[in-house]
């Protein structure tokens, strides 16, 4: 049901762009107004969320350790799962952010022949990685629309992405892989009863939205064969705050653009903020050195004192003396 709501929502967005541009002739709104607003919302919203998180202190040093601590000389220290220095912690975070290391550990539980079994389950890791890196490549490739002259590195990315040289125009691997990646994530969510049970509209919506963005992009490139130079005229107009709406831009571009703008606006208000949140996760971004170095809690209340020894001895002095335990104050 939640998946269906999300699908309807995405379809509504597609129709909105189709009618808005074709019937209501609001190309300016969809091509200029909306993208500017979307980028502003994305940037401000992202920064706002990060600042909001960062404003709460980290009172305690609570990393989740994944290996042997730094201990005696003859015991091998697992530096990257149990870091003690900032540099080791950086590497742990790097592996987490760039290689999804925790997800790589994933196992799957099953009940077989009266036993609990654990099997390696790296599919989620693999397809998430495919999805995220394809997304990154696609974003980098799209940067050619926003630079004049186009930086060389963008050209290299494009060349690598299309290195298989299949078809004309050349097929990009990332186009294919992002669809495969997201389709897997969606199928997994629908297929696995446990996941279906926990999935909300807000879980399906971004997946379907990204699929729609991918498909509309592929449609533009291979079927509508849109006029890229005209689109670049529009994007350069946006970047230079000198907006123009060129003629001859296919309506599929506006569909694609509206979906992208929706994603940008939706991003800061949703779980997609995991992209920023991961950097602030105290269980991962802290070294396990609280036995070695002082960690300050800004709201540590100095008035909280233990039940004092004096009060304790007052309570038990007689029996303590009788038992021959030393006391500070004789009876």
């Amino acid at each position, binding site marked *: 049901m939640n998946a269906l709501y999300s699908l309807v929502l995405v379809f509504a967005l597609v129709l909105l762009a189709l009618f808005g541009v074709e019937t209501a002739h609001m190309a300016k709104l969809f091509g200029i107004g909306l993208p500017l607003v979307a980028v502003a919302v994305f940037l401000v919203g992202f920064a706002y969320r990060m600042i909001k*998180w960062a404003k*709460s202190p*980290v*009172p*305690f*040093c*609570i990393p*989740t*350790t994944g*290996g*042997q601590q730094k201990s*005696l000389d*003859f*015991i091998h220290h697992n530096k990257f*799962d149990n870091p003690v220095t900032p540099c080791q912690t950086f590497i742990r975070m790097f592996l*987490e952010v760039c290689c999804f290391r*925790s*997800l790589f*550990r*994933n196992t*799957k*539980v099953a*009940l077989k022949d*009266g036993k*609990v079994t*654990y099997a390696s389950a790296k599919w*989620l890791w693999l397809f998430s990685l495919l999805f995220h890196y394809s997304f990154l490549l696609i974003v980098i490739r799209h940067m050619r629309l926003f630079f004049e002259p186009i930086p060389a590195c963008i050209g290299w990315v494009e060349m690598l992405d299309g290195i298989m040289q299949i078809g004309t125009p050349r097929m990009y691997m990332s186009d294919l892989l992002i669809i495969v990646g997201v389709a897997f994530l969606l199928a997994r969510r629908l297929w*696995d*009863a*446990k996941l*279906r*049970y*926990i*999935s*909300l509209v*807000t879980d399906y919506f971004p997946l379907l939205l990204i699929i729609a963005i991918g498909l509309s992009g592929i449609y533009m490139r291979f079927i509508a064969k849109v006029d890229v130079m005209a689109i670049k005229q529009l994007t350069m107009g946006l970047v230079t705050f000198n907006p123009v709406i060129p003629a001859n831009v296919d309506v599929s571009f506006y569909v694609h653009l509206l979906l992208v703008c929706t994603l940008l606006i939706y991003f800061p*208000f949703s*779980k997609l903020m*995991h992209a920023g*949140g*991961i950097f*602030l*996760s*105290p*269980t*991962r971004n802290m070294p*396990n050195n*609280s*036995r*070695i170095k002082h960690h300050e*809690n800004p*709201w*540590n209340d100095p008035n*909280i*004192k233990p039940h004092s020894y004096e009060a*304790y001895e007052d309570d038990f002095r007689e029996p*303590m003396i009788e*038992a*021959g335990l*030393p006391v500070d104050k004789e009876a």
Partner: protein
Amino acid sequence: MADLPKADELFKSINYTPPSTGWMDTPVDCSPGNWCYPAKADKLEYLGFPNPRQWSPADVDWKLPENWQDIVHQGFKERLDKYRSLKVFMDVCVRCGACADKCHFFIGSGDPKNMPVLRAELMRSVYRKDFTMAGKILTTLTGSRVMTEDVLKEWFIYFYQCTECRRCSLFCPYGIDTAEVTMMARELLHLCGVNINWIMEPVANCNRTGNHLGIQPHAFKDIVEFMVDDIEEITGKKLHVPMNEKGHEVIFITPSGDVFADPGIYTFMGYLMLFDHIGLDYTLSTYASEGGNFGLFTSADMMKKLNGKMYAEAKRLGAKWILGGECGHMWRVINQYMDTMNGPADFLQVPKSPITGTVFHSAAQTKMVHIAEFTADLMKHNKLKLDPTRNDHIRATFHDSCNPARAMGLLDEPRYVLNNVVKNFHEMPEQTIREQTFCCAGGSGLNTDEIMEIRMRGGLPRGNALKSVQEEHDVNMMACICAIDRATLIPLADYWAPGVDICGVHELVGNALILDGEKERETDLRMNPLPKKEE
């Protein structure tokens, strides 16, 4: 315990298919067996916790304060401002489900609300409604809901079916730590007077008597003397055990479970024999006679209050540094909280082993060394006379206690010690040990009999792994470094892997140690005859 199903029946009853109703529409089951007994009013009064009263979770009316919704809302807001962890963990979960089958309670029960993601969603749903714009407007679409009495009851049931073991956190791509979420939820429940006696009574005891069992100083001394007598019977040597004495180099603090009950007492005897063997200048304390900090399961403030005793006593007695015994959550508190809350302990010195001269730089700030580190160092320097053949009747495996494993990384030190004192040692399957270890299902104050079925379900992964080494290698002893483990793993092993006993690492050290001037031993510390030695 009477109506506990047989192990194989319980196993067959596990079903991972979620119910047909959505989780928000599936009512919470508050029937007996699903909860621990609520805290007694006098304990709450003594500690100054809110809303002390007589009540039962089976009742419809939980006698909550009139403005309980405000209390929860304000408490929630305050904690979002105080803890970045809570704020981030409420926002960044993508419900990828990587944690879903990592929780021992889910694996053994199949109850979807025991999936860590859904356990946290019980709280997130309220967070979205109360603290996010989208949640306020688009209720059902964003999965937000109003805090009702039923939601609070659901919190009580499921946040007391989490042992804060952090296994899910290890697998989460964002490091979302359900232990942290559970701690916050429990703090909020406490604000309304919804808590359990098995936590509050130990907290009250720790505060007054110094240990969670409520052992008074003279009784504590008696118990230690009994153990000294037992050691004399076994070894022919009478040990001297200093207590509450000033001017010793080291103060030794261990969980009081080691003083009180089988099989912890054998571990305690092991500590005493070790200290005598190396001539350690140490003292015990009756005032700081508990390493385990039940405050961790109530609130940050209470944790701080109880933990403060260790430093206070070290200072009063003029010790140079602190040696800590085998305990799970005690070490989480020491490693991750103690110096921040109770320190810096400038009156102490960086721990240095008086026997080997090793300086424990890894404890430079807290000034507190784990006994497994201490003993491993002694062994490395050949300072102990050991006869591992005395443990030849033992075929051991090792259970990594959750907290030292995942909130510290103490994995190889106890193994090093074990390998020096036991010849037959076998690891359980790799997905169930070291950082991936499974909880005893009785941690965080849940080792109480009224939820025995829940505990046995939660104990399935550990019990199953134990059974596999029992079948393959005839393992008959599971060593661990946690006093709660030593209490809870016994019924667990009896249920899932009958025939396996539980011990602390230092019990086996005690068996193997050759004390100066001891008589030829005929029994181990449990008074079981030693295996016949070959000529």
